[in-house]
């Protein structure tokens, strides 16, 4: 897939090529070239299947990295595209016009990370977290353990010592 990368690298300013297996390559693309690159890959190079969209929170660098994986069925190749956006202002173009299923992925990322996809239909509908009023919970600066200890009541630990009890029950002569 190196030829494909070289072919597209100047037009779309791709950087950081990586290849783990013969059919799986990764590259990084800036946010403003994203939609045109995805359209070009889908229409001209046969990557017709959007496998998934996901997000990584680089807290130390202050960036979100959104990952798109495209798949080419005729040549059995995966192309992994990574986009970095600023953590304070995470806005990305919505690709629901290219693939309808992107609507669902974008809804989930909006709920869990707080990413904005302007124009995506139904992005404010809650998916898993009905009535959630806190910060987006998958961000790394959200302390889920502290939140759950404050919000929910926990059962006190039972000091039952099962090992000692079973030993006394089964092998009393020891």
């Amino acid at each position, binding site marked *: 897939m190196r030829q494909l990368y070289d072919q597209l690298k100047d037009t779309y300013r791709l950087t950081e090529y990586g290849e783990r297996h013969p059919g799986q390559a990764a590259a990084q693309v800036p946010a403003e070239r994203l939609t045109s690159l995805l359209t070009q890959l889908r229409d001209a190079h046969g990557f017709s299947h959007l496998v998934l969209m996901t997000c990584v929170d680089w807290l130390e660098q202050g960036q979100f990295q959104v990952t798109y994986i495209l798949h080419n069925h005729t040549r059995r190749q995966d192309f992994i595209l990574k986009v970095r956006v600023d953590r304070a202002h995470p806005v990305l173009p919505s690709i629901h016009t290219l693939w309808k299923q992107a609507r669902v992925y974008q809804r989930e990322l909006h709920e869990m990370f707080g990413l904005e996809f302007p124009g995506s239909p139904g992005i404010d509908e809650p998916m*898993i*977290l*009905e*009535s959630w*009023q*806190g910060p987006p*919970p998958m961000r790394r600066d*959200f302390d*889920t*353990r502290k*939140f*759950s*200890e404050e*919000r*929910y*009541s*926990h*059962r006190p630990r039972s000091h039952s010592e099962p090992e000692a009890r079973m030993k006394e029950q089964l092998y009393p002569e020891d």
Partner: protein
Amino acid sequence: MPEDKEIVTPVPPAERPEWVKDERTLTNSGLPEEERDWFCDARPRRAEKSWRVVENFMNWARAHSLWILAFGTGCGAIELRPLVTARYDISRLGMQMRPTPRQASVFLIGGYVSLKTLKRIVRSYEQMQGPKFVVAVCSCAINGGMYWDSYNTIKRIDEYIPVDVYVTGCMPRPEAVLAGFNLLKKLIREGKAEGQNLYADKFDWFKANQKQVITDWNMPDYNW
């Protein structure tokens, strides 16, 4: 055991809308204004037992014909499927799976309970009739289990609905679930499985706990 009087927290007069009959009526506070008097506004009441001989016979019939609500709330729903197959066969014990809470007596809380599921569990539990029992399987229902530090699951199910039997495991094997059902049958025949009356007595405490975690309460206060 001494039967307590009902503990009723009355609605203060200043907050009552004009259709509320007396201080024991529920205000259905989660619903919009025009729908509030469409839904049931009576509190759940204690159901009294009858004479001892009749009650013993009825407990025997209840224990030998437990109908399970076919609502798989979490991973524990997987454990219901082998029970119905030929190897463990709960139909020889008289149990069958019913699709509606109106006809079911046992609610099997299988596994973790997220907030979205808790709302539906409360709604289904309140629609069940008669002496109703809850069996909670898996460690997530006991103390949160694998999700003990999660922001979206509750850790103690018995603060929201009354539970009769806990079965430990992650998942428990079908034999363990059957042992739990045997314990439930023993409790029913001794007359100790009175979750419905506990819910009616401590209704305000349960409801306050539920409303504390379910913040978008858009259903009646008591779903008949």
